[in-house]
Each structure stands twice: as C-alpha cells, then as structure tokens.
C-alpha cells in the first residue's frame, strides 16, 4: 500500500512498468506488491534504509534478479525467462554499480568498446569513436589507454557511466553509485549524473545523496521492508512527507 501525494498527471509514455511484483530470497520476502510506473525522461530516486529492497527492485528491472510474481515491462518488452527478452531489455537499460565493476584486464577504452562490439556488432573503428565520445562526455577521455587500477574511484565510476552509455540505452539505472567513493570524489560523479539528467535520460537511482535527489528528481520513492511506502514529487516528498516512517527516515538522514 503506498501513500501517494500530489501526483501530477504525466502524459509521457511509460518506460518501465512494474506491477504487482513480489520477490523472495528463500523464505525472506524482499519485495512486496511493488507497483511503479516510470515515464520516459523521468528521474526517480529511490531511498530507504538498508535491506528495504531498493537494490533488489532496480536489479529486477534488468533481470539481475528474477521477480517471482507480477510483471515488469521495459519499453514494451515484458521480462520473462526468455533469453531473447532479457537480452533485449538489457540493451535498452544501462546500469551503474556501487562497486564500479570495470573489467580490470582491459583498458578504459576497451572497457567501453567491448559491449558495442560484441552485442551491437559494431566495427572496431565505430566502437572506438563511440567510446571516445562518451568518455569525453564524462570528462575522462584523456585516460582512455589506462587501466582501471590506475584511476581514482571517481574517475572509475565516471568510466562506468560512459561504458553503460556506449550501449545507448534509453533508461539508466544507478545502484548507490557514490556509496563506495571517498567524499571528495562524490561530487564529480553526481555532476555527470546531473548532466545526464538534464539531457533527458530516463533515470532510476538508488542513492543516499539527498541533495542530488532534491535537485534532480522528478519523483522520489521511499522503500521500507520491501514496499514502496511513499512516492511523491520531490518537493512535497522532502518538505511535507506524509508517512511517519518517511518522516523518521528523513530526520535521520538530514540531521
């Protein structure tokens, strides 16, 4: 059951539609009856305490986790056990991980070129041009021939964003992208994410960065114990939280 406040009618097409999704890990229910529609170009920030199911939810969108009940539809493709459907969805959806997950044995450039060459069958030249373009966009073009271990955390995460963008996805998922970074490196990654948002990318972010959420999010969702407890436009979410749990959470986070 969710408490919805001030929902403005959104005429844009729906990019991600999640209906009635349940997920269990063994006997533990991680997601309870999740309903969420994400519109094209919308930026959604999901927050909540540890173990609330935030990561599980976005990982269900690109099938890194398998939902047990309900439906997940991404850009018109329904996620099922079909390998074809899964691959198609993953080419529409890019993901940035908390641990960066850059391929250590490949250079930065090769990291970005790999998926376009393998999954999109681009030629080496085209893939390289594409990769350099996105690396420039996240301001790490000069590091192209280095290996991940030679870069700072902030640089690595920006490369991770570029790598995901090289597949030219229509939707970007961010799973706590700055949680592993030293404080002084967080800003550069958030800036890249804000630029992406300004360019009109559909984004679903799990993050603790409330300042970012306030600046960038169209809507914010609060999850606790596997449910979306409250979802609202950013302003009312932060200034007039309806549910007591959200109020308590915000009080803790924004001390």
């Amino acid at each position: 059951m969710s408490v919805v406040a001030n929902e403005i009618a959104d005429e844009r097409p729906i990019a991600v539609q999640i209906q009635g999704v349940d997920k269990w890990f063994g006997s533990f229910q991680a997601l309870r009856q999740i309903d969420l529609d994400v519109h094209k170009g919308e930026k959604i920030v999901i927050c909540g305490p540890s173990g609330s199911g935030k990561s599980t939810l976005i990982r269900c969108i690109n099938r890194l986790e398998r939902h047990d009940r309900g439906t997940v539809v991404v850009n018109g493709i329904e996620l099922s056990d079909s390998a074809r459907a899964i691959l198609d969805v993953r080419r529409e959806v890019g993901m940035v991980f908390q641990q960066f997950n850059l391929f250590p044995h490949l250079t930065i450039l090769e990291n970005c070129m790999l998926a376009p060459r393998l999954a999109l069958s681009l030629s080496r030249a085209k893939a390289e041009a594409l990769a350099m373009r996105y690396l420039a966009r996240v301001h790490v073009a000069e590091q192209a021939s280095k290996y991940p271990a030679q870069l700072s955390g902030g640089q690595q995460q920006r490369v991770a964003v570029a790598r995901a963008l090289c597949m030219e996805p229509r939707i970007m998922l961010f799973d706590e992208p700055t949680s592993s970074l030293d404080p002084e490196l967080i800003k550069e990654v958030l800036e890249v994410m804000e630029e992406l948002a300004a360019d009109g990318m559909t984004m679903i972010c799990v993050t603790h960065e409330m300042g970012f959420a306030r600046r960038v999010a169209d809507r914010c969702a609060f999850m606790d114990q596997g449910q979306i407890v409250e979802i609202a436009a950013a302003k009312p979410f932060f200034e007039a939280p309806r549910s007591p749990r959200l109020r308590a959470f915000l009080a803790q986070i924004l001390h």
Partner: protein
Amino acid sequence: MTFDLALALHSLPVLMHGLIVTIALAACVLVLGMMISIPMALARTSRHKPIAWAAAAYVLFFRGTPAMILLFFVYFGFGQVFGARDGFLGALFSNAFLCAVIGFALNHSSYVTEIVRGGLQSVPRGLVEAAAALGIEPRDVFLRIRLPLAIRYGLKAYQNDVILLTKATAVVSIITVVDLTGAANAVFYDTYDPFTPLLTAAVFYWVLINAIRVGLSRLDAWLNVHLAADERRDLAIQIRTEGLAPALPAGQLGEAAE
C-alpha cells in the same frame, strides 16, 4: 667420489637427447592437459548433477593417484589390452612415449582443472553482472571476461604445476622412455660412475626448470600488466611492445621478498 669432467663431456650427446625427450614429453602433456582441463572445469561447475559428479570423480581419482601408477595403468594396462591389436589404439598404446603423455596428462589435467575452476570462481560476481547488464551474451561473457580473468588468477598456481610436471617426468624411464634421467642412468650403468652422469643431469634439470620459471614470470608480467605497480608495469609494457627480454638483475620479477 669425483666428478669426471671428461666423462661428462663425452656423455653430453646422450644426455642432450634425453633432455629433448623430457622437454617434448612435458610440452605434449601441457597441451593435452589444457585441452582436457577447460571443459572438465566447466563440467565440474555444471548444473547437471551427473556431469558435475563425473568430473569431480575424475579429479579425485587422477589427483590422488601417484603418476607412476597411472603410467603403469596406461602402459601395462591398456598396452596389454590394445597393444597387440592392429589399428589406431594398438599403435597408440604400444608406443611408450604416447602412453607416458596420456598417463601424465591424466594426472596433470586433474590439477589444472581445479586451478581453472578456482580461477573461474575467483572472478568477482560484480564483473559478470556488469557484463550481463551491458547486454553481452553469456558465451561472450565467458570468453572475454570470465576465462581471461580466470587465467590471470590461476597463473601462479599453473606455473607451479608446470614445474612440478617437468620434474615428475623424471620417472618415465620405468616404462622404457629414455628421458634425461633415463639417459643419465644408462651412462651410469655403462660406466659404474653414478655421480658424474647424475650430477650432470641434475645441472641440466636445474637450468631447464629455472628457464621455465623465468619464462613464466615474464608471461605473468605480460598478462598482468594491468595490475603491476609502476616500475614493473613499465617493464611489462616494454616486454609487450618490444617482445624482447631485457637483461635484468635477479629478483626484479617479483620473487618472494625475505
């Protein structure tokens, strides 16, 4: 108990021939072993219980059995059954060298299977997820991400195994293959001087094993160029681009510090 230099020099041709047999034997075993191990490692981690179980049994049996028994097994066992017959199997099992290759490969592959399996399991899950999330197909995820990284993780263990294998080949004279040790023994039997040929053979082995060590160290540096700290990385990049081994003082390629 003296070292007879004249005898040593005189027996060099015989010993060199034995050395070549040793190297050839080890090389064949390495190739055959790798061909068996990668599929076997995949079988070991398969979701089909019978396949995984069979692979586990393979590893258990051939890892726990001394190489000598395996040599006997192949040469006397299969040799007896197939050896007298015509055809491919007959030719295969009546050839002592090939029996030795098979016997050692059975043993060696069981170790390498575990090394590959360990390497595959050491690949962080996050990397595999990232590759999958990019829309890369499982087959390519395996070939471009999991396997290359597994090889790098397992390289040290594999190096050790190569050296152990080369040393293990020394018993092969038991099934009439004249390797370096067999050649040295032959000289001993002829001349009643145990020390000269055996010590000479020991020196040959020492040189061979250390050459292998150095060679594999360079391979390690080349493959792990992405990990190396600055001076080693520059060296590794140099090796990769120039392909030559620059002269190095000992110890610079990462031997254990005291």
